[in-house]
């Protein structure tokens, strides 16, 4: 049922929702044939990418990421933007299946003609979030979505990966829970371009304001990672749609400051290098694990290490030597 690369490319460029969706499926597929086709498509689409806004959003489960995107995304489409949302869902049971419920919290955006939302299971994917999300983002840009938002849960490694592929990385917090409670690692704050305290509504307004001040102080202690931008701390209510416009203004301001100073193009170049490094590591890993000899010997060696018959070092050496021998 696969089509030729050009059919996908034309479909995406014609902004055909179905073809965009099917291209993403190819990108996400674990089959080598699909991945190869996807690579070809992405390469052909590459010239049509790179002009839009790339925004990453992270926060602990329940921080209100999806609700925020519902409010933020609808506002952007009203301003004339076309918005794509990539939601990476970590939920998976032992069997590996996932429940993808993001759209239930993006009810209006889900039916908005100028929005495209794609929830993706992250479970069991080789190379994790990195490759797939980046390529998906590019394809969405080629399909004319000038704002791409990536939602990821801030409790794993995925968020730093996401931070390294977007222009603006927003960390959503809620008041009344300490950092540890929120499970947010210091590292995440270090890459944040803004921190937003969500749910600043009802009897929570005051607490949100207190939290805002605390985070502001905390951020001052960190070294800013850009000479042109010091990350602000803002508050908003995604349910009551307050403070949302301010965040967009902040993102525009960020873009302007970084573009004017030339930092933006540097940032993207840097990201390209990071990306290459990532692909190299990922490729090596895949290459290694798909080697027939490695595949054959791995389970046995694992068992031997487990039973203390072989040392971990010796086992790893044995496996790595296969590659040397095979490629001499």
């Amino acid at each position, binding site marked *: 049922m696969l089509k030729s690369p050009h059919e996908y490319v034309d479909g995406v460029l014609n902004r055909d*929702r179905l073809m965009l969706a099917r291209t993403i499926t190819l990108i996400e597929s674990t089959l080598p044939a699909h991945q190869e086709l996807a690579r070809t498509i992405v390469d052909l689409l590459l010239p049509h990418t790179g002009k839009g806004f790339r925004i990453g959003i992270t926060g602990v489960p329940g921080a209100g990421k999806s609700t925020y995107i519902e409010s933020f995304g609808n506002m952007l489409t009203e301003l004339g933007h076309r918005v794509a949302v990539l939601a990476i869902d970590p939920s998976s049971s032992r069997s*590996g*299946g996932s429940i993808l419920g993001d759209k239930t919290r993006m009810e209006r955006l889900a039916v908005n003609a100028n929005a495209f939302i794609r929830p993706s299971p992250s479970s069991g994917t080789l190379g994790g979030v990195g490759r797939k999300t980046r390529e998906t983002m590019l394809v969405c840009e080629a399909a004319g979505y000038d704002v791409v938002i990536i939602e990821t849960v801030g409790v794993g490694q995925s968020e730093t990966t996401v931070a390294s592929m977007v222009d603006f990385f927003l960390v959503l917090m809620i008041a009344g829970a300490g950092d540890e409670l929120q499970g947010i690692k210091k590292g995440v704050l270090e890459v944040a371009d803004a921190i937003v305290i969500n749910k600043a509504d009802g009897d929570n307004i005051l607490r949100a304001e207190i939290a805002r001040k605390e985070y502001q102080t905390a951020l001052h202690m960190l070294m800013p990672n850009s000479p042109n931008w010091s990350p602000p701390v803002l508050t908003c209510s995604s349910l009551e749609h307050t403070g949302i416009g301010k965040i967009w203004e902040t993102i525009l301001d960020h873009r302007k400051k970084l573009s004017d100073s030339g930092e933006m193009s540097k940032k993207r170049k840097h990201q390209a290098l990071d990306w290459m490094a990532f692909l190299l590591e990922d490729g090596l890993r895949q290459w290694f694990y798909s080697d027939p000899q490695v595949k054959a010997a791995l389970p046995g060696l694992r068992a031997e290490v487990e039973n203390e018959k072989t040392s971990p070092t010796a086992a790893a050496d044995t496996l790595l030597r296969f590659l040397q021998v095979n490629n001499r």
Partner: protein
Amino acid sequence: MSENPKLQKWAELASKQMKGKSVDSLDWMTPEGIKVKALYTAEDLEGLENINTMPGMAPYTRGPMTTMYAGRPWTIRQYAGFSTAKESNAFYHKALAAGQKGLSVAFDLATHRGYDSDHPRVAGDIGKAGVAIDSVEDMKILFDGIPLNEMSVSMTMNGAVIPILAGYIVAAEEQGVSHDQLSGTIQNDILKEYLTRNTYIYPPGPSMRIISDIMAFCSKNMPKYNTISISGYHMMEAGANSVLQTAFTLADGVEYVRAALKSGMDVDTFAPRLSFFFGIGMNFFMDIAMLRAARFLWHRLMSEFKPKNPKSSMLRTHCQTSGWSLTEQDPYNNVIRTTLEAMSAVLGGTQSLHTNSFDEAIGLPTDFSARIARNTQIIIQEESQVCHVIDPLGGSYYIESLTNSIVEEAQKIIDEIAGLGGMAKAIESGMPKMRVEESAARKQARIDQGLDVIVGVNKYKLADEKIDFEVREVPATVRDEQIARIKEIKASRDQATVKKALDDLTNAAKNGGNLLEAALPAVRARATVGEISDAMEAVFGRFVATTRCISGAYSSEFKANDDTITAIKERTNKFLEKQGRRPRLLVTKMGQDGHDRGFKVIASAYADLGFDVDISPMFQTPEEAAKMAIENDVHVVGASSLAAGHKSLIPALIKELKKIGGEDILVVAGGVIPPADYDFLFEAGVKAVFGPGTPIPVSADKTLSLLEEKYR
């Protein structure tokens, strides 16, 4: 071990009879987590707070009235409504002539959600799960020939309470009946809507205000009217066990009391008008004990508010037999189930009762099935001689002990809720919903394994199912009739008066003022249900639900390597290997039906079986569901339907999918779908239909087979 020599002797004898196994091996752990022993004795009563009490006296364990059924039996109150007001009115007249005592009105889903029948979102719902009401003109037809000063009328309405209650009041006015003569109950229990049924309109804050406004208006003007019916029924139907039902219902009650107190009312002005509504399932003794425990606990909980009127802490309840326990398979068995459940409600001491019709898993009740349902109660009341003795099971070792266990377990959960800041906060945190869903998933897993027996479904199945009775269908013309009447009303009323009344209502919503009172002029001026709802929505907004789904609960009820489950997991893994991704399923609920139990259980079970499951927002149109299927690029869409909308909504979905290029996406359907409609759906392109009671491994197997065939 007991010191009692007789009990020890018994245990020895019993153990001998069981070839040496200890009597403890007969213990049964109920789904509530209560350990039930094989034998109860006087010892089990020692120290229990709930024994040695009197009916009609605090703490009311034995019943709220002093003479209970010995004085007057419970009220036979059958819930009914479908199609147009005229059709429903005719049905009511027949029921009243045949021995029914009170009326109970079911509204269609469009009305519940505050939409007029001409609203495009609700095309598939008009007159389906209840009667369509668009204005006071419909209300007047509904109660035509029924003197509202004499008839007690119960109305199941939560979302659109303001226009509906105002409509009832104005219909009465126009019959010449004054406000203070009105008696009956409005459900008006919004908290449980956020928890299970989803037929709300506004966010929780404004909804709670509406409830306080209704309590305030009625306590002043309608002293005989019950302003709320705090409902556990829908929680049970959503899968809650009896302890969860008790705890969440009473916690809801406490929240309403707090809200009313906060709005400045004195507890004794409204608390005596609070009523309850419990669901009674197939665990016969458990639910008898549940009603007794609920009364005991409510008295305990209310004591905190120091009421002076004893009626303020007296729990009066309506009960309904479980709709969920009814099966599509071998449906006459449902008469027996309903009889048992009705007995349980009666022995538990209910004040009024609805018994379900045996055909409810198949279609809407017909005159025939409604008669059998009604007669089930009449026969218990008038033939079985059970009414002579008050609380006949009072003092039973088992019942009293079970009553105490429910009190203890429910109290723990109520305390937990108090710790979260009350039920409204708890609902916000998602805790109650998760508990109910977990309980539902576990139950489904027990049924699918045959651990919970359902005759005709997972045991003693009929080789050949056939339906030899009439099935009621709501004609598709109902919507057209309603739309025509809306047009007529809008053409004949005075627009300026309507506009002013609606503006005043919006104003009251914004700046304060009693909303029920403010809605009356609008109703009198012939504003529609939709217009009145919109006038408040302009200020309050429309609430959007958060759907959360648990995973793992379903499969954790299965034995570690249950064969059927393992086999299906292997197949989903195989599919992943061959296709590069897991089978991806979108479960969707189109139309205004908010019962999301089936849909949730399926989502979480299928994920446990290795599917990637997308869940759609509630209340989708076919176009919206199709867009989502395309965008998420799913292999199959599962459309869940419980409210008779399947014949229009599911074919519309298939058509829409074709239109936007998704013709290769399979569509399967599940829910309450009459077998007579299967062929219609197959012809429309549905690939499989799963009726109520289909074990999940069976539907998953079929769905996977369809996929495996397609993607070979």
